[in-house]
């Protein structure tokens, strides 16, 4: 299991680095799928088979498909890639990377300060998860349901193809070019 964890972690990190450095959206998406699959493997190695499966189905499956749909609908191809290449000069990377490295250093220091222990590696079965979900977290589940509902309605509303539409408060301003 340990080996599985290290291999998949390595793949996950590598794939993620690839995601954020790609110019072609579709390439990035595919790398992301790889990253998610690797994370699913990590979950499995941590003894969480249920979420490993969900990760594959929902993240790597459903959500990524949405992205792909959008990429297809907007017809993002070489043109976008060229543009990305233009935008992503090494200079752009410098600042964020520095900041993030500092943050990473601090996080690691914080983590190592605490007395972390080894994981037991035993499986938490889906049954326990289900009992917990429909027991103490029932209300949270309900709320998640609301959230998803709102997401669907919102997406449906926003996604409608309409003419340029502004709120009435902003209308006055926008009529003046």
């Amino acid at each position: 299991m340990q080996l599985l964890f290290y291999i998949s972690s390595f793949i996950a990190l590598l794939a993620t680095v690839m995601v954020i450095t790609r110019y072609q959206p579709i390439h990035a998406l595919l790398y992301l799928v790889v990253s998610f699959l690797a994370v699913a493997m990590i979950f499995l190695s941590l003894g969480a088979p249920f979420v490993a499966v969900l990760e594959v189905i929902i993240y790597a499956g459903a959500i990524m498909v949405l992205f792909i749909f959008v990429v297809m609908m907007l017809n993002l191809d070489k043109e976008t890639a060229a543009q990305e290449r233009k935008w992503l000069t090494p200079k752009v990377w410098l600042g964020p990377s520095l900041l993030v490295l500092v943050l990473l250093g601090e996080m690691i220091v914080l983590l190592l300060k605490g007395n972390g222990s080894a994981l037991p590696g035993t499986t938490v079965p889906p049954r326990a998860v289900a009992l917990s979900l429909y027991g103490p977290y029932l209300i949270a589940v309900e709320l998640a349901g609301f959230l998803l509902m709102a997401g669907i309605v919102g997406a449906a509303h926003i996604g409608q193809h309409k003419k340029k539409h502004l709120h009435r408060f902003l209308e006055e301003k926008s009529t003046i070019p």
Partner: protein
Amino acid sequence: MMPVHANTVLIVAAVLFLLGLVGVLTRKNILFMLLSIEIMLNAAGLAFVAAGSKWQQPDGQVMFLFILAMAAAEVSVALALVLQIYHQYKTLDVDALKELRDK
């Protein structure tokens, strides 16, 4: 079988999270920013699962489920917005969208 140290998992999660953050900070394309956000969410989920695994409790996985639900809702709305933005502004450059700036 050698057990995995909890800190290792958390460091992996942190690195994933920060990679996502770098993505958000560097990319100008909204689509890539959304991808990076997905990475960050996923990393957070990983930390939860690791914690659940450490304490042998299902709560970590439950939290991951909620994150999943939230990510799904977020992505659907965000992608709808991306479509609209692309229709209205004919670009996905986030720096072109500065309607909220203080004039």
